[in-house]
Structures are given as C-alpha cells and as structure tokens.
C-alpha cells in the first residue's frame, strides 16, 4: 500500500475536478476533492494494539440553480458513479427553496504556495512507522511504566475547483505522535506530544522521555484545595483554550446579539471614551496587553493551507496586544454589512515572551502547574465559560519552585478571561490538542485567578 492515491498530484486532481465539473448542467458548481493515504498505529500496555492503513478519496460537489443549491459527497470515482452523483445532486438542488443568502462560487485569486509538504514523510511506509514506534515502547518498558501511544502519518491533498474557473490544489504531510505513560504504582500519569511536517524532525525519544518523566513525577499526588489561583499552563493546555476562543470570534453572532463578545464589548466600551462605535468591536482593547494571536499560513513551525474555501488565507493578526483585530466574517454577511469577508484561521501562532518553563514557574509564589486539559465543553455561551479537567501531571508551585504532584482539578473558566488574566508567557511549541486538530504554535502562560472549581479523583 505504498502507492499514493489518485489525486495527490495537481495534474491528477485537475483531471478529476474537470471530470466532475464537465458532467454538471446546473448554473454553477464547486467541487472539493480530498485524498489521503493515512497510516495509524496505536499501542497500549506497551504493545501495538491496532493499526489501520487506508487510501481514501472524498469528492464533495455543490451545484446551484440560481439560489437553489445542494451538495453531495462520494468516495466512488467511476464514470458511472460520478454521473449518478451529479444527477442526484442536481435533482436535489432543483427541489430546494431559494436561499436568499446564496452566493455564486468564489472567483479565482492568487494564493501563496503552502509549505505543508515533505517528501520523506510522504514516502514513509507502514514498516517505517512501526520502526518509529518500537523504540518508544521499548523505552517505556525499560522505565517500567505502561505506555499507550498513537502515531498518525498523514499524506494527502485537497483541491478546490469551480465553474468560475478557480482551481487550487494543496498537498500536505504530517506526523502526529502522542504518548501517555502510567506508573505501575502510585497513580502517576504523564503525556507528551508532537506534530511535524517533515519526518526528519521527529524526535520521539524526547517525547517518550517527557511522558515517562511526568508519570514518575506525578506519583502519589497530594490534595490541594480548589479555588481561584495562579496557574502555569503548558502549551498543550493553552492551545485547547485558545482554540475555543478563536472558534467563537464570529462577526455575525455578534451582530445578531448572541456572542460572548456582546456583553464583553459592552462592559469594556462603557469604560472607554464617548464616541466609541458600539456596533463594531474591532479595535477594542478586550484582552490583556500581552495577548497576541496571529494566523500565519507560512509559519514554518506550524503551517496550514493558504486558502479557506477559495478565499486567500494570509498572515492576519486576530488579537494584538489585547486589541481585537479580526473576526470571522462569512461571504454573505460581509456583503450584507458592507465589510470585508474574513476566512477562519487555518492555524494559530502566539508569540511568547521567550521565558523558559522554569523561569515562568519561578515567578509564581503559590500556584499550580497544569500540563494538559481534557473534556472541555461550553457551559455558558454568554461568557464563553467552559468547563474541563486537568490531566496527566498537575503540580503545586510554592515560592517559585515545583512542590510535588497534586490531584487533578475540574475548572470552570472562560478563555476570554484567560487572555485577560495572562501575566507572562514562555517559548512557543507545536503540540497536539485534546479536541481540536488545528496546527497551533503557542507558549506556556502564567494566568492569574484561574477558576479551579473542584478536585477530581482521577489520576
């Protein structure tokens, strides 16, 4: 199965898009093709438990008659299958009521050449991935901990083409790896992860070492009472919280009065000078001075694609020095409000202050080091309050030093408040998230008054 799926090269992908669009009789059409040859390898209790290798193609076609439109997806690429898919989606579209918010397909534009492809990653075989995994499992065995890990080698491409003449093809490769180590006694648990574009940058031994070290260090945790406290959040925790914030920076929700920004903005502007435009939160100082979030598709540490649905994705500050700089604006909403459309970010980069984790810890008199979060869910959309738990290594900080493991906590906190209360930051890292796959390069943070709601017995 070393073979690449059809559609991985721009030429193949163009031919496929043209085959589909050539069958369409509707007024307009847009086709997206996603191909992937993924390898997944999973281990638990220091043995491989399962794997999968799958070549996959997904063709997603949207057709419109005037303002009536419908979509279809299929993984079948024979002429007969494509013809039938086109006929079916055309039949559906004719039956759909007119959507007053329907827009014609996106016009072609210039896109930056993405930097998401590395040949050695694409060339890796299943034997290679097992070869990567085996040493870390042996490392865990040697350290007398139980490990569970997941490795995903991803190679694929996406193409977008439409009846306005747009065609854009972007290939990507990546390797993601995460490992949990658990001690045989004392309930120690540690986790570490990495994600790279280029397989040569993989250093799984170092990741395994971090997970094992955290597991050993987190044995026999003491109970520290819950309550609002200063915390140091490692990058894995930071990325999960920031993803939740960025997902909710949506202009239409704000204009419709159902965003967390409605109350946040109104509270903030009531303090500002008269004459502030109360209908536009862009340019308002809503977060702490140190809060800066940028989408940068060409950031070499965590690149992403350079378009979103055909709209060019370029370096865009979303929050700069605490000031809101951008919100997602859909094409229809942009037209209606007479503002510029803003695609969702494809990655998030947060430049840090450059302090090491030890330096961050040294600045905390009494607090908690949180290495990872888990099961984050919205509790109150009006404030963006989310709940979740700490996991896989939580430690007390006393007088600027780590003071032993503590039991995990449930927290109730809004990521907007986290960005208000951040005091200092460290060095950016690309790590995997608990529940979100967006590439992110973010530093650890010191955050004051973080709301630890209760103690969890989980270890």
């Amino acid at each position, binding site marked *: 199965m070393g073979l690449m799926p059809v559609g991985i090269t721009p030429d193949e992908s163009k031919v496929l898009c043209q085959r589909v669009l050539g069958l369409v009789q509707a007024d307009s059409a847009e086709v997206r093709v996603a191909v992937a040859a993924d390898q997944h390898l999973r281990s638990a209790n220091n043995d491989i438990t399962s794997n999968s290798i*799958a070549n996959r193609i997904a063709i997603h076609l949207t057709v419109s008659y005037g303002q009536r439109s419908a979509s279809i997806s299929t993984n079948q690429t024979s002429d007969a299958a494509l013809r039938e898919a086109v006929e079916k989606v055309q039949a559906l579209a004719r039956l759909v009521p007119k959507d007053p918010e329907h827009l014609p397909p996106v016009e072609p534009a210039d896109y930056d050449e993405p930097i998401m492809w590395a040949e050695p990653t694409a060339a890796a075989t299943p034997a290679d991935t097992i070869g990567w995994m085996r040493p870390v499992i042996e490392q865990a065995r040697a350290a007398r901990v139980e490990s569970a890990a997941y490795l995903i080698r991803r190679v694929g491409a996406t193409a977008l083409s439409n009846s306005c003449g747009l065609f854009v093809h972007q290939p990507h490769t990546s390797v993601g790896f995460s490992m949990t180590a658990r001690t045989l006694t004392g309930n120690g648990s540690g986790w570490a992860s990495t994600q790279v574009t280029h397989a040569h940058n993989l250093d799984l031994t170092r990741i395994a070492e971090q997970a094992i070290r955290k597991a050993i260090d987190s044995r026999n945790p003491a109970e520290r009472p819950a309550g609002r406290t200063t915390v140091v959040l490692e990058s894995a925790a930071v990325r999960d919280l920031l993803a939740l914030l960025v997902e909710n920076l949506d202009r239409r929700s704000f204009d419709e009065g159902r965003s967390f920004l*409605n109350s946040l903005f109104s509270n903030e502007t009531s303090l500002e000078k008269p004459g502030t435009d109360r209908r536009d939160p862009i340019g308002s100082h809503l977060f702490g001075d140190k809060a800066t979030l940028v989408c940068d598709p060409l950031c070499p540490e965590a690149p992403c694609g350079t378009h979103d649905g055909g709209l060019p994705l370029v370096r865009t500050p979303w929050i700069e020095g605490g000031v809101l700089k951008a919100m997602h604006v859909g094409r229809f909403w942009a037209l209606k409000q007479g503002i510029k459309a803003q695609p969702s970010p494809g990655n998030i980069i947060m430049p840090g202050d450059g302090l090491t984790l030890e330096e961050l810890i040294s600045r905390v008199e009494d607090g908690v080091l949180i290495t990872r979060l888990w099961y984050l869910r919205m509790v109150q959309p009006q404030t963006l309050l989310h709940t979740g738990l700490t996991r896989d290594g939580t430690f007390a900080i006393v007088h600027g030093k780590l003071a032993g493991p503590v039991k995990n906590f449930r927290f109730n906190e809004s990521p907007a408040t986290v960005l208000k209360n951040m005091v200092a930051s460290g060095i950016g890292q690309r790590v995997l998230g608990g529940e979100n796959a967006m590439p992110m390069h973010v530093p650890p943070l010191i955050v004051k008054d973080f709301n630890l709601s209760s103690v969890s017995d989980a270890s």
Partner: protein
Amino acid sequence: MNRRDWMKRTTAAGLSLIANRWQRSMAEAASVNDHFIRLADIPLNKATSLGASFADFHIMQTDSESLFAREQMVQGVVAESTFGCSVRVLVDGAWGFAASDDRSEESLVQLAESAVAIARAQGGWRRRPVEIEILPAFNGRWEQPIEVDPFAVALEEKIGRLLAINQAATGSGATFCSSHLSQVRERKWLANTFGSHIEQSRVRIFPGASVTVTDPRKNEFATRASFSPPRGAGYEYFRDLDCIGDARLAVEQAREKMVAPSVVAGKLDLVIAPSNLWLTIHETVGHPTELDRAMGFEANYAGTSFCTPDKLDTLRYGSEHVTIGADRTALNGLSTIAYDDDGVETAGREFAIIDRGVFRNFQMALGQAAWIGRTSSNGCAYADSFEAFPIQRMPNISLKPGPDPSVTVQDLIAGVEDGIYIEGNNSWSIDQQRYNFQFTGQVFHKIHHGKLVGMYRDVAYQGNSVDFWNACDGLGGEKTYELGGAFNCGKGQPGQAAPVSHGAVPARFRQINVLNTSDEAGNKTVASNGNCNGGKLGQWG
C-alpha cells in the same frame, strides 16, 4: 415561505425524480449480496495462506442525508455515500488491518498482504500475544424493521416540516430558530475464518431544533434546544413527533429562562428527566464500564476507568433502586443490531451492568472476556466506517424503571422540599477516569414544597459518579420510560463515532452539588430578575 406555500410549489415530477435518488446504493448493495461469499474467500484465503490464525473481511456502505434550515432559509442539503472494505488478520498473536475503497480482486489480495505484513512487523518484540475465543459460525441476514424508509421520503416533505418548525418558533417570538434532520443507512457485510457470512442493514434518524431569544438592550440571549433524541427508526419517528408544539414551548421557556432568578449554589435535591439523564448514564456508567478502557487501551485518549475488574460483584455503584442493563436488541435502539462487528450474535446476550446497585459486568469485544475470567464477548464491537478497526463500543445502556409502575414524575417531585427538576441535555464533561462530572441542562424548574414554582437559570450539577448513583432514592414507573441517545459518541484513535441509545425513567437524587455558572464565570449575580449574563445555549446534541 410557509410550509403550505412550499408544498404547493413542488411538482409531481420533482417528487418522482427524488424517489429514485438512492438507486445506485441499492444496486451496489444487491451486487455485493450476489457475490459476497466468493468475494470474501479471496482475502480470507490469502490471509490464511500467509499464516493468519484468524481473519475477517468487512464491506460497509453508508448513505446519509442531512438537511439544515435557519428561519425560512434552507441552507444545507447534503447527501453522502461511502463504500469500501477492510481485512483484519491475526498473525502470530498480533493484529493487522488494511482498508480501501477499491473492491477489485487485486485490491482484496493486496489488503490481505498489507494486513499480514503489519502484523508480522510486531513479531519478536511483542510482550503479550493477542488471544481470541472461538466464535460460532453464523450465516445470517438482518434488516432493521422500519415503517417508512426515510431515504424514500420526498425532500419537499422533509424541508416543509423543518420550515414549519422554524416558523412556529419565530411566530411565537423567537429571534432565531434553526432545525435539522439527519438520516443514515448502514449496510454491512462480514465474513470470517470461523465460517460466518453476515449481511445487515439499519437506519437511524435525528431531528432537532434550537430557538434563541435575544434582548439587545441588555446584551442578553437565551436558547432552548428540542428534546427529540436520535433513534434507530424510520421516518415515522419524525413524522409523529410534535415538533411544532415543542418549538412553541421552547420559545416560552427560553424567554422565561432569560428573566428567571439565578440559582443559589449549594446542595439540592434533583429530579432529572430522561431527556437529561440519558447523557448522565452514558458518561457515568456507559464509558466507565468499557472493558478495553478499564484495561488501559484508551489511556492515551479517552482515559482509563475508576471501575476496574477487581470491583466486579463488589462495588456498590448505586443504591438498591439502580439497575442498569445493556442490550443490542431494544426496539429503536441506536446500537441495536443482530450481530456485532466481530460476528457475535447479540440476541440472548443482554446483560446487567449494575444490578440493584451492584456492579456486575463490563462491555466487551472479541478477545477480551478472558481478561476477566469469562468465556466470550457480549457482542459490543463496532467499526464506524469501512476503514475503521472494530473496537468495543457501547450497546444500548438503560436505567430500568422502578418496581411500582404507577409512579409519575410528579410523585418524585412531591417528595422534594427544595430542589430542581431538570429537563433536556446540554453541556457535559467528565474526567478521564470517570469520577468527577459536571452537567447542565435545557430547562431548570424550581421545586418548592413538592411543587414546580417557576424556573432557575445558571444551573450546573457536579458530582462523583458512584456517589451520585448512590444518592438515587426514587424512580418513575414503566410508563415514564423514554429512550434518549447520541448519534455520535466518540472513542478511539483515530476517532470513531458510534450511535447509542440510553433509556431512562425520571429519577430523584438527594443533596447533589449545584453550581451557579455565572458565579463560576466570575460575574456577580443577584438571585432576582434582570441582571446581565445568564441563560443557557443549547448546542447541537
């Protein structure tokens, strides 16, 4: 456009056109049926000849259709079909697996070779071999009984119904209303080297809506999502639901919620409706009693479990009122199927997870029973797509009614001095060993002196799974039983989504920790009308 206008505009030609739109799927399925035994022999023989001690071959076809409407706009009509196959092998005590959308003979041979190669690459350094039990061979065919095939219902009918829901909501004063309908058909074929050849087909459907009311002067908003859970059922389920009535009630309740007093945090008695409790069962009993999870197989993702094998037959998981059973045979159950994805027959394998408060059994897939000294799987394997390795997933897991069939939810409420009656599920979160949970809901009715007296807002309940179920002191009778459930429960790496139902009766729990979510967000609240920040938003379930 209202529903009647919309129906008038549709043409007979349109209706007939649409009735045939899934023909290709049916033709493909028929062609697999005709050749399945011969087709399956190719990878199974290949795997055996390469040294596999066990192999199975899966073909899976998934068709789905999803509709989304916002106010009077139809903004999503999406059809989806996937078709592919996989080969799983056990060689020298190691699993190998490969999948493809290519079902040619050449590809099937290649899949078997790839799967065997992966398994062999673990040779010489595995610590423990995978061992599986011998399963009986089944030659079976099962089709889920439904009344109306949702794939044969005209698009206009479905769209008309969604637009009517939205119109009922906005007509009653909602600022926004969105509604959706999703339907899925899974067809699966399974053959294995034990000699089984199984063909199965099932359908599920998920209608839902969410209303929002806003108060721009106060920068406030509140929402209420519908209580209609997904079901393993045909279109008749959606057709017979009173969605219009529920949409009107939802608007009323969202409005009331926006001005309701904020709850005072503390210990309170709760009466929880099945529309909320199903999810609590899912998180606090369903996931903790997955045997692979308890044994560390999910440690790197979903976590492990407080509920370890040494607690079998000894742990007091709940009070004597609590019996929670598991099955894959319940009518309209989302997990209902005749054979699981390991080829285990599910009829007769129903089991109690908790029997009168005592923990009695785990959910298992192939090769796991021996870990707890039992002889065979209880039929809980599932793969969510043709490219997914089958893993242990939840059967339908349900709270049995109390012994007195006459007990109503009012009877349970009558036994509460000060408390809350909670309806509808909303936000949920639980730790990676399933001790500490926190749930919210859609509607929180205040109980005082055994009666409902208005509403609260800003409510979340928090607790420990075992303490919570031990605090249960009353259950509704048979007639109060309702089936809730989830379309997409996540587990595994890569993630797999499984549908599962949870039946429940209303239940009463004493002295549960209630939080005020506005306090948690750091906002000062007063327990009276009119302060800013409050209410709840329903996420799509």
